[in-house]
């Protein structure tokens, strides 16, 4: 693999000699993808296949062929094929792939520049959050009063599943996608990612999953929630195929992105950036994606089994023929619990990166931060069965899993210590990113404590499967991780767009979202404690007050997010031009101008200390 370098002199027009790659873009990808999909669909008999299994097989094949066709059409396989025959891409072709001198068009191509991929991810994440958020509004509208009057149970169940999986996918990539790709390589002083073509691959593969997921709407929806428990998922209608295909495609994207980011941080750090000088955001993001590498394949296994059960009548989850729904739950949560930390850790790491800059103090106990992340990462693979206390799979193992689960509170406590220690005796500069740190402290505190009840087997006897669980994980995933991601957006917006994020709109949005969030999930905690099961389209009158409170909070969040969306779009186009280093930070990404040059640095930087050298001399 090569990296791109540049020297001062005249820029030639890149002309990779009429190579095929110059003719391919998103448009050709769409065309070839649709052709592949239609050929597969009608080749296998279309919807004339009356039998459940055969129709499922047709749909699954169509979805995968769409994805493969799109990747063929956009040129993803040119590199591997040229490697196979030994005619590697020429320098000019590589420059072309990096999008050199192609302006806005490179965002619609198989572009290997990590900054382009970062922006692609950012727009993609915003779209996913928008769709998932709209679904959340519809869910809360349906629950505003008893009777399920807005959408009814069929659509409601689909909304719950699609909201869940859309948000989970969005949250997994919300930090490591935009910031992990755009910012992180600059932060470690690298010219690009370790494998630029894999970088483009990870984004475009993910992109092909989006229409697949959307197709679920037109195939009858996903009636299973995002957890897609078997045997409900085996019984479900054709929309379930969209879920299966989405997860398998997404797992490929995650593995590729995870390997790429990890290899970049391990092998491409600037000269002098020893492990104890790596910015904490980079450490957190790397641990998160490294944890995702072994976690997601088990989800993929469970989805392949679901797909086989549905389309080839295997019996993995059919208890009548030796299968078991418990097996599904195991495979799902062996992925699922590490996955929540895959979401959480990058968000926390962003806030740890932000806090020292705005308090003008060193990060408190870098080692404790690493120990916290490492402890969470390590323990997270030993706790999956706490989601299955009440499944009856093996009650005698509930005790051990309770112990490992509650042990996670110790490394989690270190995260609080690091942030509090950084704030202590400083005078926090209350810009938008810094407000996120405070919102995180409150939200994650509530999320953590409510997690303690749920980790306890006797208490879980009551709380499991209730709205209380829903409120708990929204506090951790949304209150903590999304808050971190939004703080990161406010923090890095100037570097990614060259403009400052509109502050007034940012504050309005922050307070609307955060207050609405407390209202929403306070109501939901009460509903759960009162005994309302989760994922219900309707409820009895005694939960009416708490559900009404929740819905009011939800609308506040919705309003706040619209304000934020306006702020992002408006500031991107008309915002105040940002100086090179608006926050006075000491990390490397603030030493490069906007627009960031193709290879990031004129001369490779040399690092002599960690980026937290704030504060008065001495200790």
């Amino acid at each position, binding site marked *: *693999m*090569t*990296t*791109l*370098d*540049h*020297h*001062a*002199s*005249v*820029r*030639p027009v890149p002309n990779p000699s009429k190579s095929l790659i110059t003719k391919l873009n998103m448009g050709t990808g769409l065309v070839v993808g649709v052709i592949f999909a239609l050929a597969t669909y009608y080749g296998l008999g279309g919807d004339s296949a*009356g*039998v459940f299994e*055969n129709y499922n097989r047709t749909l699954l094949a169509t979805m995968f062929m769409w994805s493969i066709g799109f990747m063929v059409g956009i040129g993803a396989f040119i590199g591997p094929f040229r*490697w*196979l*025959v*030994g005619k590697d891409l020429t*320098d000019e072709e590589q*420059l072309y792939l990096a999008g050199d001198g192609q302006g806005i068009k490179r965002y619609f191509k198989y572009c290997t520049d990590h900054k382009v991929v970062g922006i692609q991810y950012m727009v993609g994440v915003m779209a996913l959050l928008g769709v998932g958020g709209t679904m959340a509004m519809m869910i809360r509208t349906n629950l505003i009063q008893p009777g399920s009057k807005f959408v009814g149970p069929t659509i409601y169940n689909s909304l719950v599943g699609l909201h869940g999986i859309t948000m989970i996918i969005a949250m997994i990539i919300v930090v490591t996608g935009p910031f992990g790709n755009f910012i992180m390589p600059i932060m470690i002083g690298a*010219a690009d990612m370790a*494998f630029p073509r894999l970088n483009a691959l990870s984004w475009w593969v993910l992109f092909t999953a989006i229409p697949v997921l959307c197709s679920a709407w037109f195939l009858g929806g996903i009636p299973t929630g995002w957890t897609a428990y078997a045997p409900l998922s085996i019984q479900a209608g054709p929309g379930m195929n969209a879920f299966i295909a989405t997860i398998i495609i997404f797992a490929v994207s995650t*593995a590729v992105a*995870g*390997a790429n980011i*990890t*290899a970049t941080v391990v*092998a*491409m750090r600037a000269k002098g950036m020893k492990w104890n000088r790596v910015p904490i955001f980079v450490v957190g993001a790397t641990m998160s994606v490294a944890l995702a*590498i*072994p*976690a*997601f*394949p*088990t989800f*993929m*296994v469970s989805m392949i*089994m679901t797909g*086989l*059960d549905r389309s*080839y*009548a*295997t*019996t*993995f989850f*059919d*208890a*009548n*023929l*030796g*299968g*078991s729904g*418990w*097996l599904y739950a195991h*495979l799902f949560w062996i992925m699922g619990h590490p996955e929540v930390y895959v979401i959480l850790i990058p968000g926390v790491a962003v806030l740890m990166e932000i806090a020292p800059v705005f308090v003008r103090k060193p990060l408190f106990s870098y080692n404790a931060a690493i120990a916290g992340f490492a402890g969470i990462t390590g323990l997270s693979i030993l706790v999956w069965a706490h989601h299955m206390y009440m499944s009856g799979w093996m009650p005698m193992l509930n005790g051990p899993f309770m112990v490992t689960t509650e042990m996670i509170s110790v490394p989690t406590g270190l995260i609080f210590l690091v942030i509090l220690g950084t704030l202590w005796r400083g005078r926090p500069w209350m810009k938008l990113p810094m407000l996120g740190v405070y919102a995180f402290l409150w939200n994650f505190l509530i999320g953590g404590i409510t997690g303690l009840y749920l980790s306890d087997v006797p208490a879980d006897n009551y709380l499991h499967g209730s709205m209380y669980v829903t409120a708990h994980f929204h506090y951790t995933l949304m209150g903590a991780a999304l808050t971190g991601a939004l703080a990161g957006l406010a923090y890095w917006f100037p570097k990614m767009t060259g403009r400052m994020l509109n502050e007034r709109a940012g504050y309005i949005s922050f307070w609307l979202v955060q207050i609405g969030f407390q209202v929403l999930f306070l109501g939901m905690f009460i509903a759960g404690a009162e005994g309302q099961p989760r994922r219900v389209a309707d409820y009895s009158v005694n939960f009416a007050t708490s559900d009404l409170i929740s819905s009011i909070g939800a609308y506040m969040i919705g309003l706040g997010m619209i304000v934020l969306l306006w702020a992002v779009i408006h500031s991107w186009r008309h915002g105040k031009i940002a100086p090179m280093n608006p926050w006075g930070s000491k990390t490397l990404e603030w030493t490069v*101008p906007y*627009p960031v*040059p*193709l290879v990031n640095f004129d001369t490779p930087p040399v690092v002599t200390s960690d980026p937290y050298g704030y504060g008065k001399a001495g200790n």
Partner: protein
Amino acid sequence: MSGDTRFHVHHDAPIQVGRRERLGVRLLIVADGAFVFGMIFSYFYLRNLNANNGWIPEGGHTLSAMSGWVSVFPLIIAAITHRIAMKSGNAFKNIAPITFVVLLVGLYLQWKQLAHMPFQVDGEAEGEKIFGFEGAYASSWVLIAGANMFHYILGAFVALGVALRSRRNDLNAVLEFWRQRTVGSWLTWIAISGIACAITTSII
């Protein structure tokens, strides 16, 4: 700023690039390892649970342990021939095609095995042919064989790649050596995973 800057491709030291690529492949092997772990875990979980005596239902078929091992031998041979080829230095280009052919043979064997599994239960519904599988044992077997097949395809691809590339003179020798090592990592891994799967399916 960047407007008047001339860009050109800068090549990192081949050894650096080679190491980086091998690290990337090893990380992907970790992912694949988790996948194989998931399959083996499922096999033993369902075997020990034996829900409603359905692991091998009454009258169900089983495959001999040898059937699992037959499709693994080519993987092991390929890993060894690749190693021999690398040790032989200049003769690499003559030995490497053997690795590729061995993998193709294995792929064929695996395909034949999958196509002739004894577990299928044929039937007809609404005028269409359908089929199902006997039970959890049969299902697990098919999944493991399928994963093995996927390993063969990727293995054959990279083996063909290094074989073809070794016949060209315009490529960087150091980098190509590292790429052969990287391919070696993959071939070794699929042999190990094949052995693990064969041990698994040997225990009925």
